């Protein structure tokens, strides 16, 4: 047994000793059933509100209203959106984004790069200068960012490696810059056309566990003394608040006192969707924060927890994403995200494991099932879908990070 294993064993033993003598819980079946009844009541109320909102939107559109023209007078469930369904195993219509499967990067157009990363590919992003930025797990078990040469003939050669804080890659609205956090928390931004990453100001007021949310702006290398309107701003969610780091050399806490989290920031940087609260049965309340005027909109609540602006900011996709696998994907009104415009039902047996905007009208949805199979569907903003854009298999698909 090596030193690492020995210490790990002693940690386990120490934790076990800590629970010795712990007062036993008195929870009974009646307690559990009482709590379950409360959850069920709240879920029904939330579901009823959700159906009503969907019907209110879909019926005027008339997509399927003609089919409902019978004499049914009672409330009807929301009809599914129109579907251009294809055989889920065919893989019809290759995606317009890069993706990774089994450690190989597939670029739009069909070219493949094998960067030979034993730790797999956790996330990837492409830059216009043909570089591919990959988040992987290094030999020491820590996260790394590896920059891969994606130019013709380069065959996925590694250009640079950077230690990475546990977190995420985020991309700016025009797809020209990708940001991540260094192991020590320092934000780095790799811009198309610049060989080395630009370092932004570190978040000096420890916000706890950090998760990058958005990068706004096109030129993080701009002189900090230049006029307003240039530069970039990186948004991150800490524990209980959101923090920003600006290329103008400062960091700050986002001025949104009611918020306890940050869901997304529009690509133009003019508005954000902030998390206000979350209840026991996963009802989430959010509001829209006007980042220019500094004013917050009316709170809206529902079962959606993960919000994603489209590249132009004209659409917002949202779904429930809390551990057990995400659910149906909704498209909400960017100006009033509590208003659901269309909903796409997750195929039976599958859960949503991630989304990426392919273009401003289409979302790629990564689906997984309990058996570890994965596939990617294309969903349009009207709720119609194309199944199996990437065919079903044991691939653990990773689709390119987009704004």
């Amino acid at each position, binding site marked *: 047994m090596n030193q690492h294993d020995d210490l790990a064993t002693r940690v386990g033993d120490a*934790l076990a000793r800590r629970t010795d003598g712990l007062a036993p819980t008195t929870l009974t079946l009646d307690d559990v059933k009482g709590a379950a009844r409360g959850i069920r009541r709240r879920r029904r109320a939330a579901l009823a509100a959700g159906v009503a909102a969907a019907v209110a939107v879909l019926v005027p559109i008339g997509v399927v209203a003609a089919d409902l023209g019978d004499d049914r007078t009672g409330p009807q469930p929301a009809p599914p959106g129109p579907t251009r369904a294809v055989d889920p195993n065919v893989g019809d219509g290759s995606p317009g984004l890069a993706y990774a499967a089994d450690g190989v990067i597939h670029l739009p157009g069909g070219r493949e790069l094998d960067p030979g990363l034993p730790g797999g590919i*956790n996330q990837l992003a492409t830059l216009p200068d043909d570089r591919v930025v990959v988040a992987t*797990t290094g030999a020491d078990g820590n996260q790394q960012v590896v920059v891969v040469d994606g130019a013709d003939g380069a065959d996925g050669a590694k250009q640079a490696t950077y230690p990475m804080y546990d977190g995420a890659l985020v991309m700016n609205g025009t797809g020209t810059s990708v940001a991540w956090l260094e192991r020590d928390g320092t934000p780095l931004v790799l811009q198309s056309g610049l060989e080395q990453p630009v370092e932004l100001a570190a978040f000096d007021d420890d916000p706890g566990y950090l998760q990058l949310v958005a990068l706004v702006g096109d030129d993080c290398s701009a002189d900090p003394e230049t006029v307003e309107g240039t530069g970039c701003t990186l948004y991150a969610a800490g524990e209980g608040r959101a923090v920003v780091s600006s290329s103008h050399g400062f960091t700050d806490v986002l001025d949104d006192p009611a918020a306890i989290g940050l869901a997304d920031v529009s690509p133009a940087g003019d508005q954000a969707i902030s998390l206000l609260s979350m209840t026991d049965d996963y009802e989430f309340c959010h509001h829209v924060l006007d980042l220019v005027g500094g004013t917050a909109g009316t709170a809206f609540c529902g079962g959606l927890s993960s919000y994603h602006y489209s590249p132009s900011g004209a659409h917002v996709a949202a779904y429930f994403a809390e551990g057990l696998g995400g659910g149906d994907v909704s498209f909400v009104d960017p100006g009033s995200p509590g208003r659901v415009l269309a909903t796409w039902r997750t195929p039976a047996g599958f859960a949503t494991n991630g989304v990426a905007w392919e273009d401003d009208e289409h979302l790629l949805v990564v689906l997984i099932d309990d058996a570890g199979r994965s596939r990617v569907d294309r969903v349009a903003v009207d709720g119609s879908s194309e199944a199996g854009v990437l065919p079903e298999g044991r691939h653990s698909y990773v689709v390119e990070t987009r704004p």
Partner: protein
Amino acid sequence: MQATAGASAHTGAMRVGEAAKDADFTAYLEARRASLMRTAYLLTGDHHTAEDVLQASLAKLYLSWDKVRDRGSVDGYLRRIMVNENNSLWRRGWKRREHAADIVPEPPPVLDSYDDGLSRAVWELVQSLPRKARAVVVLRYYEQLTEAEVADTLGISVGTVKSQCHRALAALRDRTPDHLHPRHGEEQR
């Protein structure tokens, strides 16, 4: 009459089904209650919150019991709910208010006559970790799940599990007195 008889039979069948479910669930609860409470305590760090988390998690398990039981993965499913429940606590207003208070309710410390200092260091370290990282450490080293099982439970990558564990052990080494290091003294031989 026929309709009434049919409805009665249906209602009766439902009751039988619910009674069977309750008996099944009770058997699970009795068998696993103590162990689940220990895990909840390690995840949350205090007894009262652990009970809250466990009750909410069991309620959600109860609602999904028919679906989950058939999969044969009840423990894994429940662990996932518990971790999610605990991770969500900080987002709730009541929890933030509770944090604002000076007095944090704690059970009496567990006396450990064999504690050489490492147990205390481990506990303090685990308490200082962000919730998600704490869950990784508890599931990996206390529950002794594999890295892949921890990743699956938490919905994160295996790489993230590795890095969180690596960081936690490294921090523990930094905080642990020299004489408690597993290989202390070997270099002198």
